[in-house]
């Protein structure tokens, strides 16, 4: 095991006006592990990812990714991670191949390597046959797979996946996790994922941090969490830790926009 964690978060707070989205959170992620943030809507998962990916500055506390501070060394940190945001960030008017190619240019991947790796990844994610099709013709599962493939194009050290299976059918979810696990094994890429599905955290992650109302209430492997709480399922452990089952919190402005976008984009 490597001595220094690839991600280190210490006493991080993020407030939006009166709302404290992340409230004194500390945790480490080890290199090459699959780490899950498990928590209900509004727990602060996305906010944490946005801070680690340089999109938001913490109100206080310290962040580190591969030994670098995302608030100070933005460009260096950005080279080191790939990210699949909760909301889609593909260009749906372009083809799968074009989406990959632009990403390669943005990350300064040399043309030859860009092509080879795009081909490898698209094949692995079962999208090679559809590479010349516009992304807007893709199913939800295909889009999500393409985003992951794209996020891996520049061989990042860390891959962030923010609720990657939200809205997918069980079959697509299974397929996706198998692919992610394989990649994690094959390339040793650290995976930081968030989910509010307990079964996923249980099955996929090496270690889990349970987050609720902006605070981490427990960290450990699924077995450790069950042991700590003296329960026999992660579900029961979660209930014991947070005092609630996973629930849908009040909708945010972004949730409402998401609703609209679903209606308009099928």
């Amino acid at each position: 095991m490597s001595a220094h964690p690839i991600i280190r978060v210490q006493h991080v707070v993020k407030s939006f006006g009166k709302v404290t989205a992340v409230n004194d959170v500390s945790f480490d992620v080890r290199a090459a592990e699959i780490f899950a943030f498990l928590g209900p809507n509004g727990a602060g998962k996305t906010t944490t990812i946005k801070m680690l990916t340089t999109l938001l500055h913490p109100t206080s506390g310290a962040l580190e990714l591969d030994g670098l501070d995302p608030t100070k060394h933005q460009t260096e940190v950005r080279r080191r991670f790939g990210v699949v945001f909760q909301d889609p960030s593909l260009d749906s008017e372009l083809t799968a191949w074009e989406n990959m190619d632009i990403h390669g240019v943005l990350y300064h991947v040399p043309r030859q390597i860009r092509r080879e790796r795009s081909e490898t990844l698209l094949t692995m994610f079962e999208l090679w046959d559809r590479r010349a099709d516009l992304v807007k013709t893709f199913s939800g599962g295909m889009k999500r797979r393409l985003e992951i493939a794209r996020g891996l194009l520049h061989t990042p050290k860390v891959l962030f996946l923010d609720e990657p299976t939200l809205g997918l059918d069980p079959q697509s979810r299974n397929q996706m996790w198998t692919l992610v696990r394989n990649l994690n094994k094959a390339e040793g890429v650290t995976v930081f994922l968030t989910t509010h599905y307990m079964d996923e955290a249980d099955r996929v992650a090496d270690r889990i941090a349970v987050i609720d109302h902006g605070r981490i209430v427990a960290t450990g492997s699924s077995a450790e969490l069950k042991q700590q709480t003296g329960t026999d399922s992660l579900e029961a452990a979660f209930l014991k830790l947070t005092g609630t089952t996973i629930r849908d919190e009040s909708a945010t402005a972004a949730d409402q926009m998401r609703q609209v976008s679903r209606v308009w984009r099928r």
Partner: protein
Amino acid sequence: MSVIYVLWLREVKKYLRSRVQIVASLGSPLMYLGVLGFGLGPVFQRAGEGKYLQFMAPGVIGMTVLFTAMFSGIAMLWDRQFGFLKETLVAPVPRLLIMVGRTLGGATVAVLQGALIFAVTLIAGFRPASLLAVPLAFLVIALIAVIFSALATAIGSSIKEMQGFQMVMNFLVMPLFFLSGAIYPLEGLPKVLAAFTRVDPLTYGVDGVRGVLIGRAHFGVALDVAVLLAVGVLFVLFGAWRFSKLEA
């Protein structure tokens, strides 16, 4: 350079692929051209101002460029939450390059749309003074396009809610158009209105295009171009600054 190029190319490709949208966006310029052209033409002529179509064609081209460029900035609101923008915001490249690529792409699309309307006005009977004037006019049109693409980027980076979109349309884009002298001559306006037209950058854009194409400029083409260049630099800097402050 390659970053600017791919982002520029992306905008242009998307434009060329969106045939339906291209046709749909011809709607309002055609309406102005048709309704105002036929409706006001006789009055205009009786007032001794010549053919109204000759006068208003440059205005309608200016309007098209304004609307197209501003719309690309509004699209940014959506893009921020559900689109490609975040992908570029976490890329390890300076924000400035991204802003320049996007803005040039948006401006190019606006110029292409302007060219389309120009062709339509030719079909409708508009006649430029000389063939040589056409490429010159497109230089002025390109300046207009850059100015409003940059402004649109600034606005797209600054407002968050979709409601802001309506505000911008009602309180910025429409006044920019109506105050620009696109559809009426700037001579002999009431003082207050004249003052307003002078702070509208589109006024100088339309005046410049008109000066080049039909030899009728209120301020003179040189002054028009000088103002456009100055405003262009200012707006690009402003847009780049707002874009650099953008948090997703």
